[in-house]
């Protein structure tokens, strides 16, 4: 019997393979204007989040873990643990200084897992790094902030979707690679914090992370440990 968490590793390791065609990048009707609330999607300053994370694969397999995300400056720290409190993975991404993996229990000790996990975390919590930002609407109605990275990756921020927000990332081939849907948002200072998040990864093995917020705290002025 394989441990359920193993499926997450398999899934993350195989993101770069081939898969069924995910949705493509929608055409944007450009509009001049401000960023229209997209900045509120990403928490600013020092934050700590604790979520329950239900992950599942297309075949229905999956498991539930607890996840910790700490944001501070350019740094992101994250940890995964079992419901019983056993730490499976803990790492700190120090930006230009690189990724420090503090603990990684097999099979979470593969670099590809760490990279995939941190990419999920950055997608949810960090403003995309981009060369240009465009503002407009998709389908004539949905406001979008489109971040276009130098490497061709595109991130669409939909700041007003179903009472919260959505994020969609596309690869250089313009195929959808990740989508994040927030729901039951509440305003915390300048940030919109969702009670629930659903991240879908598109690729060779589609996967879903359903995250429910246990705790969110703005730790003003405190450096990331």
């Amino acid at each position, binding site marked *: 019997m394989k441990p359920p968490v193993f499926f997450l590793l398999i899934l993350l390791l195989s993101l770069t393979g081939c898969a069924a065609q995910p949705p493509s990048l929608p055409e944007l009707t450009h509009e001049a204007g401000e960023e229209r609330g997209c900045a509120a999607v990403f928490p600013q300053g020092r934050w700590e989040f604790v979520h329950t994370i239900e992950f599942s694969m297309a075949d229905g397999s999956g*498991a539930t873990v607890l996840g910790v995300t700490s944001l501070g400056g350019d740094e992101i720290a994250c940890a995964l643990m079992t419901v*019983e*409190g*056993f730490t499976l993975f803990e790492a700190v991404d120090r930006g230009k200084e690189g990724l420090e993996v503090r*603990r990684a229990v097999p099979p979470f000790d593969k670099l590809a897992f760490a990279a995939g996990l941190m990419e999920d975390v950055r997608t949810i919590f960090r403003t995309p790094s981009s060369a240009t930002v465009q503002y407009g609407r998709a389908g004539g109605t949905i406001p979008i902030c489109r971040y276009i990275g130098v490497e061709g990756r595109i991130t669409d921020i939909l700041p007003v979707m179903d009472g919260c927000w959505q994020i969609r990332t596309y690869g250089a081939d313009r195929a959808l690679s990740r989508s994040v849907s927030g729901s039951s948002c509440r305003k915390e200072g300048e940030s919109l914090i969702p009670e629930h998040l659903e991240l879908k990864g598109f690729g060779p093995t589609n996967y879903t992370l359903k995250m429910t917020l246990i705790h969110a705290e703005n*730790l003003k002025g405190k450096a990331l440990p």
Partner: protein
Amino acid sequence: MKRLLLLVALSLFVAAPAAQAQPGQLRSVQADFIQEKHLKILARPIISTGSFTFQAPQSLRWEYRTPIRSILLMHGGKMRKFVERDGGLAEDKGMRLDAMQVVLAEISNWLDGRFTDNAMFTVSFPKKQTVLLTPKEPGLAALISSIELKLGDQAGLLDKVIIFEGPGASTSLTFSNRLLNQEIPAAVFTKQ
């Protein structure tokens, strides 16, 4: 991943020796617990609450109520785990059971009051009312550096367990409302 189960099992067998002051007398143990998870990156610990019921020789219900409900059941030589999922309790069928069987053998030693070295742990008594378990196997030691048991003032009752994973990472379990040798209905060891 065997270690994940091992951790749960550790929680079991450190709870079980609550009655070891009367070797051979233990029939059941029930208690509530508060679990604190400490990590270097956490500004404050994650608090979980739950309860457990153990009945000799090898029946267990280990249940978390918050922040997420989960139930580990061992009964009749079988082990099942259920975790809250999509609003209900879904069975976690990915668990390995072989590690638990090994650990259960250790549990029986504890139930007999044998706080002595064994294949898995070196046992020491650094202070009165404190038992320190240090893993012998390097693979296990890489995951759990030590386990500290704080025995209560009342003979045999356990107050607290601290599982040290490494620098800045630990899990503590503080027990309360402990009951010994109550009659336990078999239904307790089923999903309910």
